[in-house]
């Protein structure tokens, strides 16, 4: 019976995707236009042109569009169809990896099936997998990277059973580095996340040092070295390719001015009313605009910070500064602004971080059949689902933090489930922290939705088992 439930959780969304595949249409606007142009460039002029005109956006999704165009030309169909197939395949992989990850957390199969099913039919997940925006290309790799980290962590704590020794540690590290390289090729923020995400391994080195377990230290060092060798090797080569082709030793070319704009906005004098508007902006612009004036809400929108950095860029270009000097100015001034108003910055980033809970029903850039549109855009469904899932995710994160603090068994062999939970939470935390420094747009949350839903499954499982035990007593 349980197996049937799991099978249905995978099959029903699949049937749903077939319907969506034929009846929806991708809408090319804003960033999607840019992606389409880059895809066309790679398809028609090759990767050389992509690098020559760079630094461009992250390469993985751009390559996927070019591949879709190639397939589209071959089968004489619109490239949207191969792209939608890729989207559905990536979502399917995400569901498979999420299921494996939930097994690591010992989540009950029925709960796991419910979460898998929801991931497969969720308006946001299906919408984002069938449009021309890059996020879906990161979904499976993030879950797989977390799963692989847990697997590596577990083997590091079972030396006696791990027969592969140092070579095994190197292999595990290389795979994890490769997975982060994949994530990086969709979301460039992975470069910053990886360094902090691995903190439990650094901590374990310290613990091993205290207990004089030098063999374990050696394995951990090999593991970490393999990760950074593969990851930094890949990233460095890509940056070098950019440097040779267009003179910029960069991965993508749109971060310094954006960072400055957001930091500058957060450093401006705050009033209680402004902070209230920031809180109201968390669920979305529409919630803010119902309670505050357009000017008050506008202050927290991307447009405001875009105006700030656009004005500054104009001012700097009038001064005829070299490009390197402009980047230097933006970075140095961002650090100055950050440190001069540190508490305010952290407080506002904390508010910003809460946006990760309001991910559901943020659907756009896909045209649906009228009957489906009437359901998806209906207020009760949109706001109802959004609120319910925000509360569920928030509750799950609180329960996770509580569980992690209550049972500190991350570093011993008995606490493997606890360690799995730590890494899921760890990724969500650093990913959110990285984006809170900038601005969390709804689509930035989508890659960690599966991890958030895994935490929801874990939390429900915890409550279920706790109340189940009490009921049995």
């Amino acid at each position, binding site marked *: 019976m349980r197996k049937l439930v799991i099978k249905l959780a995978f099959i029903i969304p699949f049937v749903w995707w077939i319907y969506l595949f*034929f*009846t929806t*249409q991708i*809408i*090319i606007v804003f960033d999607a236009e840019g992606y389409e142009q880059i895809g066309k460039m790679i398809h028609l002029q090759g990767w050389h042109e992509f690098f020559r005109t760079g630094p461009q956006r992250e390469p993985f999704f751009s390559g996927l569009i070019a591949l879709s165009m190639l397939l589209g030309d071959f089968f004489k169909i619109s490239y949207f169809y191969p792209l939608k197939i890729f989207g559905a395949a990536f979502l399917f992989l995400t569901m498979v990896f999420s299921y494996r990850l939930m097994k690591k957390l010992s989540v009950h199969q029925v709960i796991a099936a419910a979460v898998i099913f929801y991931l497969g039919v969720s308006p946001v997940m299906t919408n984002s997998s069938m449009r021309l925006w890059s996020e879906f290309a990161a979904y499976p790799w993030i879950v797989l990277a977390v799963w692989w980290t847990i697997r590596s962590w577990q083997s590091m704590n079972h030396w006696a059973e791990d027969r592969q020794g140092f070579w095994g540690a190197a292999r595990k590290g290389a795979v994890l580095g490769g997975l982060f390289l994949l994530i990086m090729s969709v979301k460039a923020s992975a470069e910053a996340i990886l360094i902090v995400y691995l903190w439990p391994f650094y901590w374990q080195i310290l613990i091993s040092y205290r207990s004089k377990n030098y063999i374990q230290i050696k394995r951990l060092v090999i593991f970490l070295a393999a990760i950074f060798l593969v990851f930094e090797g890949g990233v460095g080569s890509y940056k070098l390719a950019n440097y040779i082709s267009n003179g910029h030793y960069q991965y993508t070319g749109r971060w310094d001015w954006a960072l400055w704009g957001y930091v500058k906005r957060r450093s401006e004098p705050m009033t209680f009313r402004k902070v209230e508007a920031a809180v109201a902006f968390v669920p979305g612009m529409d919630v803010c605009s119902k309670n505050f004036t357009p000017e008050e809400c506008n202050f927290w*929108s991307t447009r405001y910070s*875009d*105006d700030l950095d*656009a004005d500054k860029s104009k001012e700097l270009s009038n001064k005829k500064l070299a490009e390197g000097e402009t980047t230097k100015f933006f970075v140095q001034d961002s650090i100055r602004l950050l440190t001069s108003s540190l508490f305010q910055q952290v407080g506002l980033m904390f508010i910003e971080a809460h946006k990760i809970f309001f991910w559901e029903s943020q659907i756009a850039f896909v*045209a649906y059949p009228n009957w489906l549109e009437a359901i998806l855009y209906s207020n009760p469904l949109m706001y109802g689902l959004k609120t319910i899932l925000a509360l569920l995710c928030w509750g799950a994160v609180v329960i996770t933090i509580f569980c992690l603090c209550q049972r500190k068994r991350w570093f011993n062999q008995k606490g493997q489930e606890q360690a799995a939970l730590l890494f899921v939470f760890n990724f969500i935390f650093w990913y959110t922290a990285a984006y809170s420094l900038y601005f969390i747009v709804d689509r930035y949350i989508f890659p960690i939705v599966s991890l958030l839903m895994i935490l929801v499954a874990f939390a429900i499982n915890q409550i279920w088992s706790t109340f189940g035990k009490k009921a049995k007593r």
Partner: protein
Amino acid sequence: MINKLKNQAGWGVLIILAACILPSLIKHMIKEHQLVNEKSKIITISYYFPHFPYFADIVSGEKQPNKELMDGYHFSRPYIFHTYYQRAVDLLTDNDSARYLLGFCDYYMGQGKEAQKHYEKALEINKYFFWVYYNLGIIYFQEQDYLRSATVLTNALRLNKNITLEILHQSAFYRQIWRNLPNPPQVLESNLQEGFQDAAFLLASCYLKAGGFDPALQLVGSLGQNQYHQDIGRVVQKMALSHQRSSDELERLIKVYIPIRLF
């Protein structure tokens, strides 16, 4: 044995159900596919809605067209008029209003040739809209192609004003702009009246350039006393009477008082 039969019966029911549902489902999907394709065009355009009150202010004469405000974001407002109309033209190739408005954006972005191309195409699609003739007449005049300018303006003056007003009322692209006016019918009618007079002045200037002094005099005389730009009328009359083909004064006045307009 019984279980096997049950299983087979179950599969049989499933297959019959699928056979019944599948054809109508496929039919439904094909129909939806076509509808969604059309709908996606409209949705795509709607994502680029610019700040229409700015164009309404240009229509009412409160603001002047500005190159900077034809395509971009200013003070968090989307002045992405060019992008919007370009998208509209890409998706709705036979829409004259979108082409006409794209021509306006192109002109004030310094792309006169592109503007001319769009106006000519808009004229090909719809021959009853006065303002296309008017703007095209000005562009030809600026290019010193007085014959084509005179031809276009002559055709413009033959048009029925009510048809132009009706087009303005019917077209969704024009409506997006004039609905932001405080009193649309009054402004649109008054602008059209002024446009007809300006077209007549420009045509008279074309006559002067070709040495047609009497027709120029007649045309200006036919406008009567209630002229919007009496200065131009006076200069044209003076030039016609003195058989003068061109004057800096007239060029200056035309430049100031007869610009490329929206409607």
